[in-house]
């Protein structure tokens, strides 16, 4: 017997929640308990009094499961609002990565040149290493990290995706 896989599509969700203890565990736990997948999850307070947080979740699921994920999230008591930005339409997704590259000679020059192409900033430098700060969509960052792999990549730290709808209205 083999277990079948469903056709999945990637969605970015913005979840506005009360900033109470355990809220992240509640949301992450809901995903694991119901077998949903999380590709990326970011969370930060977004109001002056720090009472509200915005959680951005990138997940992939079939359309039917996506509907369930949103309904299940909305059912949690501390959740104010769930927006499926992918279904909503035009939106901006950004990620920030810090990429440490070590090397000398041609590799070092090539890394610096590529960083310029990718508009990555040097935020730390030694005679044998750089730390680049690069922002953009996940694909761009994937690509940059991929290129650095050949040039002495040491380690990468990524924030995960944050996203917001285009235009003047809140989604």
């Amino acid at each position, binding site marked *: 017997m083999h277990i079948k896989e469903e056709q999945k599509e990637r969605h970015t969700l913005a979840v506005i929640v009360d900033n109470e203890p355990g809220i992240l565990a509640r949301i992450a736990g809901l995903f694991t308990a119901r077998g949903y997948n999380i590709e990326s999850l970011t969370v930060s307070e977004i109001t002056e009094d720090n009472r509200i947080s915005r959680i951005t979740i990138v997940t992939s699921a079939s359309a039917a499961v996506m509907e369930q994920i949103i309904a299940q999230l909305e059912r949690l*008591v501390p959740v104010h609002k769930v927006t499926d930005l992918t279904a909503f339409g035009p939106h901006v997704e950004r990620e920030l990565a810090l990429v440490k590259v070590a090397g000398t000679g041609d590799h070092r020059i090539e890394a610096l040149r590529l960083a310029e192409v990718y508009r990555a900033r040097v935020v730390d430098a030694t005679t044998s290493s750089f730390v680049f700060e690069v922002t953009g969509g996940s694909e761009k960052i994937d690509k940059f990290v991929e290129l650095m792999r050949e040039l002495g990549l040491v380690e990468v730290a990524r924030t995960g995706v944050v996203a917001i709808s285009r235009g003047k209205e809140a989604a």
Partner: protein
Amino acid sequence: MTEKSGADILIEALSDLGVEVIFGYPGGAVLPIYDAIFKQDRIRHVLVRHEQAATHAAEGYARSTGKPGVVLVTSGPGATNAVTGITDALMDSIPMVVITGQVPTALIGTDAFQEADTVGITRHCTKHNYLVKAPETLGSIIHEAFHIATSGRPGPVVVDIPKDVQVATARYEAPGPIQHKTYRPQTQPDAAKIQEAVDMLAAAERPVFYTGGGIINSGPDASEALRELAALTGAPVTSTLMGLGALPASSDQWLGMLGMHGTYEANWAMNKADLIIAFGSRFDDRVTGRLDAFAPNSRKVHIDIDRSSVNKNVRVDLPIIADVGLALREMIACWKARQHPKPDLTEWWNRINGWRQTRCLDFEEKGNVIMPQRAIRALYEATRHRAPIITTEVGQHQMWAAQHFGFESPNKWLTSGGLGTMGYGLPAAIGAQLGNPDALVIDIAGEASIQMNIQELATATQYRLPVKLFILNNEYMGMVRQWQELTYQSRYSESYSDALPDFVKLAEAYGWKGIRIEGRQELDAGINEMLAYDGPVLVDCRVAKLANCFPMIPSGAAHTEMLLQAAEVSGEMDDEAKALV
């Protein structure tokens, strides 16, 4: 205003909320609360013998009275023992508030004695939970906990109170009506959708009402409204396990329960219907069978208060998010306003009556052996005039009770449906008896399940509760054995109930009356003796050992692939079938 201890605030808040009874068990981390209970007389505390039983007793109380059940247990093992009942209440949408003691705030996270991460453990088996960090917030949290537990789709809420918060003092004032900032369940149906549903119903040739526990949860008027709508439209009605009693079993329009052990007529009607209206039911896998063969030619309307129940298992054509009772009332008003005549469903009823001819609940009887179905029917005949409250454990006896005991009104049938918790019935009966002192309360049990909370015999004795415990004793975990016959060529792996106690002596040891029924000629007399006794009675009713529960839709089969006979149940299943629950 003077300050009160957290423990006193808790008692006062519970009292303000109308709590009459708490089911609990003391321990180190709740001693301040127990001392506050000792010093008051507004709230009655019922001492169970195991924390799991406290939760089931609270469920039985809640399900039979419509009021929330309240549980009080200590930290650590007290809380972890309560987890099964909390999960049970979540699955069956039972309003329940569980107060757990916690080690003092300064000790949280230090692996202190009897420390467990109660909010962490119960996060996904509660509707919501709280850790109270200051006595100033305790009162409002308790009020909010009751609001969340009882409104919308009901469920369990845990409030974890560290011991120092129980001792520290603060002011308490009962808050007004709660306007929660995020939690606002939608109860009023959309009028346009109600009209659409009503017009679909008026146009349907083969409608079926598929009702569930939501009707019971909505309150007695929802059952009343269901009866009115059924009478107006003439539609046949079936129900899930949790919804029994919403429509009287004596009604001509009643098809019996549907699903895995539902009736032939209910399942065929679902399969051939052109319109299914789901009222407070959730298309559970026990109900649908194989999804791609479930009611294939029907349009579906789903009325539910929980949006996440809609389109979860089965895609529907018209979802209506609302309290099902309010939706039923709106449908009745709309049906009348639009002056729909009663549809002519003669052809549809002729087909249904044809399926009824199968007489799928009939069973063969030989010699003096008591068939379990016969025992339930005899119990029903002897008690129906008293409108008893029936609780069950989990297994074959539960399904036979659902099939053969007729329920005429809501809140009379208490069973563990979603979670399927063995050991539910006896504590649930105790809770129901406390909430309904004058009612006849009977736990229909199996000899295996009953041993999972047998210690609660003492609770009934202590509080002089005249609970009746009717054990269908076939010396097997019968449902496990039945599946082993169906799937594993009758290899009875660990399903025999060996080393059973002498139940009559056990009953007597706990101060109960014990009766043994061993043959058909003893059945009615034994039942009458049980009913005549003014106090708790345990009946050890010896029934046919190898009887199986039919009809049965095997896991992953369609409604039309029902097994009706024992002869059809044998052999070995393929791996796909073995992997299904």
